[in-house]
C-alpha cells in the first residue's frame, strides 16, 4: 500500500498527470448529469450509438487529414443526436432500432474508410483500438486540450443549472409540459446537443465503446438508492467523479488501461448501490 501511494505521489509531480485528472473528473461529471434524464427517457443506448457516429466522423476526418478533427466530429455528432432523439418520437423506424442501425453503420463505414485510405498510419489496428477503448494519449493532453475541456464542461454545467427544472418537467411528463406551454422540442434539442458534446469529449477519456458506461452507470446506481430527482442527480454526479478519480489513479498505479479501469470502478459502484438498495427496501 505504501509503495502504491509513493508511486502515485511520484506520478502526481508531472503536470500531464494533473491535466489528465482534471479533464477526467470534468468529463465524468458532465456525463453523469444527463444520464438520469437519458435513462428515464429510455435512451440509455444513445451514448453508444452516438459514440460510434463520432468514431465514423473521426475516420472521415483523419482520411481528409483535417488538422482539427473536432471541427468535423462535433457538428456531425450533434446532428445525429438531434435526428435520433427526434426519431424516438414519431418515426417509422422506432428509437432503439434507429440507434442500433446508425451506430453499427457508422462503425463499419468508419473502419472501412480507414482501411481503404492510403493516408492512414501503419499502426491501424492500434489506432482503432485507441479510439474504441480510450487511449494512453489521454496522458498527453496539451494545455489547449485542457482549456477546451474546461470551457465546454463549464458550459454544460451552466446550462444544466439554468434548465434543471425544465429538464425535470420534460423528463417526467413531456405531454404535460407541452400542454402547459413549455417548448419541449427546444429542450429535447438542447439535451441532444449537450449529450453529443459530452460524448465527443468523453471519447478521449474512455473511448467510444465505453462512453455509455460513463453516462448511464452513475444514474442507475443513484436510482437504486435515492428517491427524489434532486438526490439522484447530485449523488450520480458525486459518484461519477469519485469513480473517475479512483479509476484514473488505479490505472496509473497498476498500469491498466484508463477507460476500462474507470468503467470497472463504475460497475463496481453500481453493484454496491444495488445491494444497498435491496437492503434499504427490506
Amino acid at each position, binding site marked *: 500500500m505504501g509503495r502504491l501511494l509513493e508511486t502515485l505521489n511520484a506520478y502526481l509531480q508531472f503536470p500531464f498527470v494533473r491535466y489528465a485528472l482534471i479533464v477526467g473528473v470534468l468529463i465524468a461529471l458532465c456525463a453523469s448529469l444527463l444520464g438520469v434524464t437519458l435513462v*428515464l*427517457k*429510455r435512451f440509455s443506448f444513445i451514448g453508444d450509438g452516438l459514440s460510434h457516429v463520432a468514431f465514423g466522423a473521426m475516420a472521415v476526418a483523419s482520411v481528409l487529414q483535417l488538422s482539427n478533427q473536432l471541427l468535423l466530429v462535433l457538428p456531425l455528432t450533434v446532428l445525429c443526436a438531434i435526428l435520433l432523439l427526434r426519431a424516438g418520437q414519431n418515426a417509422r423506424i422506432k428509437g432503439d432500432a434507429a440507434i442500433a442501425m446508425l451506430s453499427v453503420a457508422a462503425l463499419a463505414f468508419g473502419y472501412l474508410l480507414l482501411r481503404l485510405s492510403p493516408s492512414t498510419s501503419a499502426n491501424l489496428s492500434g489506432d482503432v483500438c485507441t479510439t474504441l477503448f480510450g487511449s494512453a494519449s489521454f496522458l498527453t493532453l496539451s494545455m489547449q486540450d485542457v482549456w477546451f475541456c474546461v470551457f465546454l464542461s463549464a458550459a454544460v454545467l451552466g446550462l444544466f443549472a439554468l434548465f434543471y*427544472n*425544465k429538464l425535470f418537467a420534460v423528463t417526467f*411528463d413531456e405531454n404535460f409540459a407541452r*400542454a*402547459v406551454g413549455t417548448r419541449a422540442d427546444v429542450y429535447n434539442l438542447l439535451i441532444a446537443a449537450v449529450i453529443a458534446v459530452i460524448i465527443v469529449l468523453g471519447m478521449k477519456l474512455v473511448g467510444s465503446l465505453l462512453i455509455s458506461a460513463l453516462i448511464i452507470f452513475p444514474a442507475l446506481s443513484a*436510482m437504486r438508492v435515492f428517491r427524489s*430527482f434532486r438526490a439522484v442527480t447530485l449523488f450520480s454526479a458525486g459518484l461519477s467523479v469519485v469513480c473517475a478519480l479512483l479509476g484514473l489513479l488505479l490505472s496509473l498505479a497498476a498500469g491498466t488501461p484508463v477507460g476500462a479501469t474507470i468503467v470497472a470502478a463504475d460497475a463496481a459502484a453500481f453493484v454496491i448501490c444495488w445491494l444497498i438498495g435491496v437492503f434499504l427496501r427490506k
Partner: protein
Amino acid sequence: MAQIVCNNVALGYDGSAIAEGVTFSVSAGDYLCIVGENGSGKTTLMKTLLHLQPPLSGSVTLGDGLRPGEIGYLPQQTLVQRDFPASVREIVLSGFQARAGLRPFYTRAEKQTAAAALDRLGVSDLARRSYRELSGGQQQRVLLARALCAAGKILLLDEPVSGLDPKVTAELYQAILELNREGVTILMISHDVAAAVRYASHILHIGRQVFFGTRDAYVQSEIGRQFLAREGGGA
C-alpha cells in the same frame, strides 16, 4: 362569458376527419364530460383544446380571460413515470415551470401554492414521499395538484380513473367534484358513462353523431339512452 367555445370543429389526422360538427361551449364552473366510443376523436379533441394540434376546420376560441397554456392538464400515466425517482414536492412544483419562463428556481409563493394544492387534494402528508412508492389513487391526486399549480381555473382530465379500483375511483371522483364546487371548471374525457351522467353538469358525446347539452338533456336524448344502455352497465 364562456371560457372555451368550439365552433363547428372537425377533428382528425392528415386531412381525414374522425368527427365533424363539434360545437360546444364551456363556462366557468361547468363540469363537462366528453364521452364517445374508442377512436371517436376524444384524444384528438383534447389535443386541439390544449393547442397541441390545430382543428381540421372550425374554430376554438378561449374567453373569460383564459389564455393558451392556462388549462391544467392531467394526462394518462406513462410507462416512464412508474419507476421515476422524484419526490411528490418536485412533481407538484413542476406545474409552475411553464410560467416560470427562464427563471431557474421556484419562488416562495409558488412553493406555498404547491403545498396548498396538495392540501386541497388531501395528500399534503405525502409531500416528501417518492412518487413511485404511492398507490395509483395517490399518484393521480399528486398529478391533479400539479395541474392545479399550472392553472387554477380549468382542468382537463384524460381518463383520470383508468386502472383504479372501485373504491379509489369513487374517492377520486369525489375529490374532483369538490374542486368543481370550489369553482374550478372541469373537462373530463371518460370511458365511464355511468359516472359521467352522475357527476357532470354537461355532456359532450362525439363520434358519428355529436351531442352537446346538459346532463339531463343527454339522459333524455336518443343517442344518450342508446349509449347508456350499451356502455353504462344499467346505471
